[in-house]
């Protein structure tokens, strides 16, 4: 059994003396071609929440769910384009009432069949407020959401009235508003189906989640390691090209990088900042650095009177023009950020709504014009700009750099100063309770590759993540119109028309698009990052 021996060697290589291991792994990798049974040792962090589809909103839990589930649609890792996966068709005549038909015969890895109920029950569970799912609000557009998750008090219904099972492979969804791109949102993890065992033995399910995706969880030692192996019951098209993925939990990204360099780790998508300068030579070019669906911005508290005037608009434009994005992304971020010129992300592609330069001259560095605009607007409200950030994240460096840039443009060393807040939780607390008096950092990581997701939840009146509390009736109307457009191209155009209003109002200044980075060992190849900066595990091949 040469195959089994090789797998065993791989495991030993990860745990025993490196001298011996290098000898063995080099002898096994010298055999030519790819090894379909080779297991990839990959970087991982401990998931924050239990691994339930609607309860996972961070990248570590998301990476696993992505491997063990396949939703109604899935996104192309290169173009971000949504296409039907488990769904056979998702249709509507009025962009509000949708009929979902499933491809029949799909199975969960425990052998049970994926039916319309698998979806409807999962969604109802996720939305019900007493189940405390952090992503429950993803069902806010479904009719009856307010009955299962009222802002205050106990729910008056256990299920959403908008979801109806028609037969084993068909269900209908009534939304509370028109939403033409709704089918394309359904690749997000919150919309995954769950098997019956999720409800019958929930505790056991959480110890070993079961899904309908390309991989299944073979074993999981909490906070240490998870072993994923190909799911033989998988019916989709992304069949794994390797023998499985072993996710190893690291606390410190430097430790993972040391393991990557010494051959104990094959895939590291948690590259520490300190390694970025030398990574090309360290890994002989086995490094990827490409835009992900994340944009970083600086928001302003438009709920403060002096920030909500027409003059303040000019000041915001001036501040935006005072920031030398090109230099900061190059020096501070070692080119792992790309200067932003709109409010979306390059991963959307031109067809999806990304438009380079949409922001216009406001996002271009022009110190003289910046100073002039700020003075024309009556100077910075309060005399000094503060930029708040959470000190437990890697933000101090760039906030100081941005302030330096503004100070240089103004010719005054006291124009701008960073304001650290101890923890992320406290920082978010101050932001959501409207306690900000100056500017603050905001970031947006897309949930699905749609221009809608970059605009509606962040900039429409009263939206859940509208941290600057921007309110523009015209903008809202355009977003509603775009959502009602039956034609996708027209919808994107309308969203972009709305987005252009942000360039004059500037509730938030675009700074840069965040890149996803990953390095890999010589043992594996074909490493890609999807638009969510998660590695496409199923495509990795092992030598």
């Amino acid at each position, binding site marked *: 059994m040469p195959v089994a021996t090789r797998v065993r060697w791989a495991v030993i290589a990860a745990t025993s003396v490196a001298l011996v291991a290098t000898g063995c792994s080099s002898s096994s990798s010298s055999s030519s071609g790819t090894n379909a049974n080779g297991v990839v040792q990959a970087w991982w962090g401990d998931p924050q929440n239990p691994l339930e589809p609607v309860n996972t909103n961070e990248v570590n839990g998301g990476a696993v769910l992505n491997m063990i589930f396949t939703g109604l649609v899935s996104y192309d890792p290169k173009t971000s384009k949504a296409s039907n996966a488990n769904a056979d068709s998702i249709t509507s005549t009025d962009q509000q009432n949708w009929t979902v038909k499933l491809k029949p015969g799909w199975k969960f890895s425990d052998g049970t069949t994926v039916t319309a109920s698998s979806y409807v029950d999962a969604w109802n569970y996720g939305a019900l407020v007493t189940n405390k799912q952090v992503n429950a609000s993803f069902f806010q557009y479904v009719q009856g959401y307010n009955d299962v998750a009222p802002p205050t008090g106990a729910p008056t219904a256990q299920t959403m009235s908008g979801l109806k099972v028609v037969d084993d492979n068909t269900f209908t969804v009534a939304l509370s508003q028109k939403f033409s791109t709704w089918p394309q949102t359904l690749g997000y993890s919150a919309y995954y189906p769950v098997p019956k065992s999720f409800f019958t033995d929930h505790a056991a399910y959480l110890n070993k989640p079961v899904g309908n995706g390309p991989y299944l969880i073979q074993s999981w030692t909490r*906070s240490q390691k998870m072993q994923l192996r190909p799911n033989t019951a998988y019916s989709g098209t992304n069949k794994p090209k390797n023998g499985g993925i072993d996710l190893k939990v690291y*606390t410190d990204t430097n430790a993972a990088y*040391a*393991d990557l360099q010494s051959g104990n780790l094959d895939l590291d998508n948690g590259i520490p900042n300190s390694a970025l300068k030398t990574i090309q030579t360290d890994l002989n070019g086995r490094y990827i650095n490409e835009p992900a669906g994340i944009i970083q911005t600086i928001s302003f508290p438009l709920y403060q009177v002096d920030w909500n005037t027409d003059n303040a608009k000019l000041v915001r434009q001036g501040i935006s023009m005072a920031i030398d994005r090109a230099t900061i992304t190059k020096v501070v971020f070692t080119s792992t950020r790309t200067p932003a010129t709109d409010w979306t992300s390059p991963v959307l592609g031109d067809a999806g709504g990304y438009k380079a330069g949409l922001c216009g001259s406001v996002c271009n560095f022009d110190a003289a014009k910046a100073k002039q605009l700020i003075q024309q607007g009556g100077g910075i409200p309060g005399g000094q700009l503060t930029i708040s950030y959470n000190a437990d994240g890697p933000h101090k460096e760039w906030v100081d750099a941005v302030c330096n840039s503004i100070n240089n443009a103004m010719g005054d060393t006291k124009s701008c100063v960073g304001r650290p807040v101890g923890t992320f939780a406290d920082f978010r607390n101050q932001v959501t309770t409207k306690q900000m008096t100056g500017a603050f950092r905001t970031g947006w990581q897309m949930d699905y590759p749609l221009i809608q997701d970059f605009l509606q939840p962040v900039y429409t009146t009263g939206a*859940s993540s509208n941290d600057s509390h921007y309110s523009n009736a015209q903008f809202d109307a355009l977003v509603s119109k775009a959502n009602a457009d039956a034609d996708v191209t027209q919808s994107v155009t309308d969203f972009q028309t709305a987005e252009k209003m942000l360039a004059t109002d500037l509730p938030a200044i675009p700074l840069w698009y965040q890149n996803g980075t990953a390095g890999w060992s010589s043992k594996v190849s074909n490493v890609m990052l999807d638009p969510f900066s998660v590695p496409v595990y199923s495509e990795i091949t092992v030598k």
Partner: protein
Amino acid sequence: MGRYVLRRLLQMIPVFIGTTFLIFVMVHALGDPVNALFGDKAPDPAVAAQIRAQYNLNDPLWLQYVKYMGNLFRWDFGTTFSGQTVTSLLATAYPATLKLTAVAFTIEVVFGIGFGLISGLRRGGVADNSVLILTLVVISIPTFVTGYVLQYLIGVKWGIVPATAGDPLTLQSLLLPGIVLASVSLAYVARLTRTTVAENSKADYVRTATAKGLPRRRVVINHLLRNSLIPVVTFLGTDLGALMGGALVTERIFNIHGVGFYLYQGIVRQNSNTVVGFVTILVIVFLAANLLVDLLYAVLDPRIRYA
């Protein structure tokens, strides 16, 4: 002796309550942890309220503390946000940290006292001077620097031992982290031993023992070393707690999933159950180690007796 131990155990109770309360207050001073669960998004108010209720976050702080301590006495340390019980985390973390600490402690005792003895006996010699210089270098470099440098050289560049300790923990993989963790304390122990040995080698009883014609080996081990060890044991006792605390840094560098891993994660995610639970056990370990040291005095020094 029995009464002394009893008195010491009773003294532990207020210390225990005081430290846990302080930690509890400090974790809560960081602010509301629920917002962080939702990332950069604004939390859904209804869901956030449910989560707050689950973790008693709506109660006044003192009531939260009383509830927490009440559960603690039923051996219920609460759960993390990821749904694991803290007791299960304790059960996986403490063995890992204890293994690392044991390795480090052994290295510290054997090499620290060994080096100290050699250099104390041959003062001014080559061995003595090299020990002095080496320990000075070790003491002046922070542990994390030693850790990263040794990891890079021995683990990554030369590949002599694994760069991280991995899972399961073997003695071999714990050797490098053990040396890093022990290094600073080892240097102190060596210097402390050297001084006391040098001092005691001129003492009357050593001269008497030599004059009696006892073999040098016996003079050194039974007379000189035993008497010189009293201050060293004091240091080692308090250092045991420091080692477990210092393991936080070393564990991170070498990716050992012990107390440091969970404490760090608990602090970052502001999960008071995890942080207070782990610190509570650390406090108990520290108190027990101190008691043990005080009892060891009596064994080493016949002049000390506890009533």
